[in-house]
């Protein structure tokens, strides 16, 4: 097998999109495909795309759920703009996704579902297979449902209809294994592992996998196979990871390195829930999770835990962050360590809850009453959510402050092939603890460098003290209404956060560190797309560089210096211009241009490149 191919084309990369009903298990199929690709040595990036209804009526456009996988033999940094291969299990899936495929793409449909009834449900007026709309595409009409069923039935195992139909994924998988010229054994292994405890399921799924593979090999329709070689220059131990899992693990890593326990107080909300779910699995690592009655109780329980000497963490998305702002202010004035993770989604209000956006930035920086400064950082790839969750823990503990870590739906649910870090080599984190009975301890005495106060923990002898939301006197921490003390304390709080700039890396330039014509400025989850677009344009000879920010407030110390090396500055964000407004207020000396997209979707590389070229051309 795998050797008798007719016509194999070598590809650097390919984007495959799986689409079907919400209940069809598209995410699972996509994951299986990407895991298989990883095991063949490809680099990859994935992104799911699902509606806000759980399972809107079958066959309707509202119910279509998708999963996009981008694999390649060079570094893959985004799930890809448009698909080379689309698997559409029904007409609604086809209809929804035709605008997201490349011209000439290969489209595999389950022909069993392409009948009048399904067309109508999907809202088609004409039969898309006969109205010329698919002209120019390579269409593969596979009888996926019927062949899967027939295969299962032939085994005479007394399998019910529903279970039989679930094997369709394996048919698709078999087909793809052939299409990508891969050893189908890997597919077999996956099945054996997944259904380890259910031998019947192993049997039927294996059979259907082979049925798919053989169908592809046999049928005339598929003339070409693709071959994507293993990624070069990437050595090490890798795994797929979503941003949410990486965030959870980064939090664990940070607290372990600090020698404090991790306490998560949270309330479920899309797309942040998986962090809570993930952490609830790791009690054996001394992680405690508390599913609170609401977001306010979530953050408050975390503050209580921090007061008691754990690191309190709370995870949420925009609407939840809104609810947490009052309590965040309490953490600011009491100067307790706390990590707030905001996985941004489409707003305002409930907005587009399953879509991605970067529109909580202003709320993160400014969304508290009074003068309430706190540091804000942002992760930029699914994998580096680990690194920045770790950073959030470090900053919170070493500087005694609440920290907001921004990720987004795109990072949270997307995956990349991530090199597993060496836990032993992660830096130590040193919280400013106090010794029992320290005669010099005062609740608001400060470290002269960082300006943080020290952390005396209930249970410690001789350090009893009281903190709270009323303004406190410098050093001694008594309730104080003194006007000048308030000014002193307000400035300490601001200064403490500003001084974090001395403890974070300088801003890097991707491209020409000496400067040049155009600097692209981005932050957070758009890194993959911006980086690819800039890199490709540089390869094409354009004078363009990228400064992509992970440290938002305070900004890296050299930000002004970096900006001043370039003539033009284009700030790209998935919102209506929040970072650019913030930059204007912080570094008003540059005249920023802006490029914004607010469609609940990530940037596409193509649209970025177009915009960048235009910006370069403009006088």
């Amino acid at each position, binding site marked *: 097998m795998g050797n008798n191919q007719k016509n194999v084309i070598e590809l650097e990369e390919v984007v495959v999109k799986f689409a079907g009903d919400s209940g069809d298990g598209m995410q699972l199929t996509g994951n299986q495909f990407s895991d298989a690709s*990883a*095991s063949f040595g490809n680099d990859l990036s994935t992104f799911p795309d699902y509606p806000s209804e759980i399972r809107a009526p079958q066959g309707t456009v509202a119910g279509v759920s998708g999963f996009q996988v981008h694999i390649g033999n060079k570094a893959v940094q985004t799930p890809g703009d448009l698909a080379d291969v689309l698997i559409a299990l029904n007409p609604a899936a086809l209809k929804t996704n035709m605008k997201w495929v490349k011209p000439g793409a290969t489209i595999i449909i389950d022909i069993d579902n392409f009948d009048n009834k399904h067309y109508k449900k999907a809202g088609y007026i004409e039969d898309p297979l006969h109205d010329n709309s698919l002209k120019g595409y390579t269409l593969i009409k596979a009888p996926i449902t019927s062949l899967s069923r027939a295969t299962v039935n032939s085994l005479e195992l007394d399998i019910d209809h529903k279970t039989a139909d679930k094997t369709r994924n394996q048919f698709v998988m078999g087909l793809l294994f052939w299409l990508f010229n891969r050893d189908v054994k890997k597919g077999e292994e996956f099945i054996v592992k997944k259904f380890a405890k259910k031998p019947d399921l192993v049997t039927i799924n294996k059979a259907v996998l082979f049925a798919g593979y053989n169908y592809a090999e046999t049928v005339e329709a598929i003339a070409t196979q693709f071959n994507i070689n*293993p*990624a070069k220059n*990437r*050595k*090490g*131990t*890798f*795994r797929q990871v979503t941003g949410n899992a990486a965030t959870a*693990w980064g939090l*664990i*890593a940070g607290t*372990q390195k600090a020698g404090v*326990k991790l*306490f998560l*107080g949270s309330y479920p909300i899309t797309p942040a829930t998986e962090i809570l779910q993930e952490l609830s699995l*790791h*009690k*054996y*690592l*001394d992680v*405690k999770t*508390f599913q*609170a*009655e609401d977001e*306010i*109780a*979530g953050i*408050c*329980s*975390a*503050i*209580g*835990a921090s*007061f*008691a*000497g*754990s690191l*309190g963490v709370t995870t949420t998305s925009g609407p939840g962050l809104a609810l947490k702002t*009052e*309590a965040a202010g309490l953490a600011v004035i*009491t100067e307790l360590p706390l990590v707030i993770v905001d996985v941004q989604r489409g707003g305002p209000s409930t907005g587009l809850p399953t879509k991605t956006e970067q529109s909580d930035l202003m709320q993160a920086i400014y969304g508290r009453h009074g003068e309430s400064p706190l540091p804000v950082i942002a992760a930029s790839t699914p994998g580096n959510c680990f690194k920045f969750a770790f950073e959030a823990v470090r900053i919170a503990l070493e500087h005694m402050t609440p920290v907001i870590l921004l990720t987004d739906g795109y990072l949270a649910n997307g995956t990349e092939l991530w090199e*597993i*870090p060496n*836990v*032993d080599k992660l830096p130590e984190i040193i919280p400013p603890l106090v010794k029992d009975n320290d005669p010099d301890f005062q609740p608001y005495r400060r470290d002269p460098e960082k300006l943080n106060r020290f952390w005396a923990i*209930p*249970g*410690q*002898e*001789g*350090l*009893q*003290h*009281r*903190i*709270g*939301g*009323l303004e406190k006197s410098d050093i001694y921490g008594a309730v104080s209404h003194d006007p000048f003390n308030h000014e002193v304390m307000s400035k300490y709080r601001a200064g403490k956060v500003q001084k974090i700039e001395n403890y974070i890396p300088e801003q890097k330039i991707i491209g020409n560190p000496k400067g040049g014509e155009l600097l692209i400025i981005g932050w957070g989850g758009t890194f993959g797309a911006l980086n690819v677009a800039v890199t490709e344009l540089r390869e094409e000879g354009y004078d363009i560089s990228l400064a992509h920010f992970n440290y938002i407030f305070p900004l890296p110390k050299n930000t002004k210096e970096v900006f001043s090396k370039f003539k033009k500055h284009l700030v790209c964000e998935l919102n209506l211009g929040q970072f650019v407004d913030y930059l204007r207020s912080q570094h008003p000396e540059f005249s920023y241009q802006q490029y914004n997209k607010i469609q609940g979707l990530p940037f596409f590389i193509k649209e970025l490149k177009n915009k960048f070229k235009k910006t370069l051309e403009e006088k």
Partner: protein
Amino acid sequence: MTQSQTKLTRADFQIDGQVKWCAGCGGYPILAAVQKALPETGVTKENVVFISGIGCSSRFPYYMKTYGFHTLHGRALPIASGLKISRPDLHVWVATGDGDSMAIGGNHFIHTIRRNINLNIMIFNNKIYGLTKGQYSPTTPLGSITKTSPHGTIENPFLPGELTIAAQGTFFARVVDKEPKGMESVFIDAAKHDGTSVIEILQNCVIFNNDIHEQIVAKDVRDDRMILLEHDKKMIFGKENDKGLILDGQEIKAVKIGENGITMDDILVHDKKTQNPNIHYMLARMTYPELPVAIGVIRSVDQPTYEAMLDEQVEHAKKNSKIKDLKGLLHSGNIFEIK
């Protein structure tokens, strides 16, 4: 839990600075009673934490020489919950007002109770918002004229005990700010109870709701209008100890012993430990003038606490997890070695 070696005294818990409530505020005797009760609970100073929300009552932690945290209006309980769950070894007390616990904090109140987290919650029920100067609270009697109800309130007040029991509370008691001994003994009981203890304190606010409880607690009427419940004892009351409570169908009734053929045998015995909440619910709901108001520990039943169950799960996971450390976690699942 760490137990104190040398016996502590009230003075160990008194602050050096000023207590800043109004002269005559019911807060003072409550503070004194807590400071006297604590040494009896066998704690060490450094293991006691007082948490509060916002309100006059919530200034409490500033007046205790222990660890303390004056938090946000309504949020004392989730903060105390996080603290206790993460550190079950600490003794955590919550000082809160009727507004703090049952207006803005009402949700946390019922959720904390159903989780049975081992906190001792003192509700200073003065039936008014003190700190904001006299608006009605969720416990203000229907029809009351206050700063925000110039024509009288039109809301049925909550009974803290009723809510506690309906939220599956394991401990509820009611005390009066004027009665130091009663408070001390109930505070000690609450401290000993392993689970959420709710103590409603009928507290006087001299400034904005003066004498609101007098109808019941005034010296001359109190014996007939309150009943002190003691576990395993007959529920009798009255100046002459000649009245008692009986169960008549679905209702509790107050009767005179010796009248209408009622004898001491008919009088109910108080059982604070019965798991079935029905009778506690009825006792907690008793209001004057229909019935005497119940004082003392109404309900105190054993049930596992949230933090104990969680710690069990943690221990169990540590013993049974195949993955043992972070490294193992990062390498679990599908791993690809690329060479």
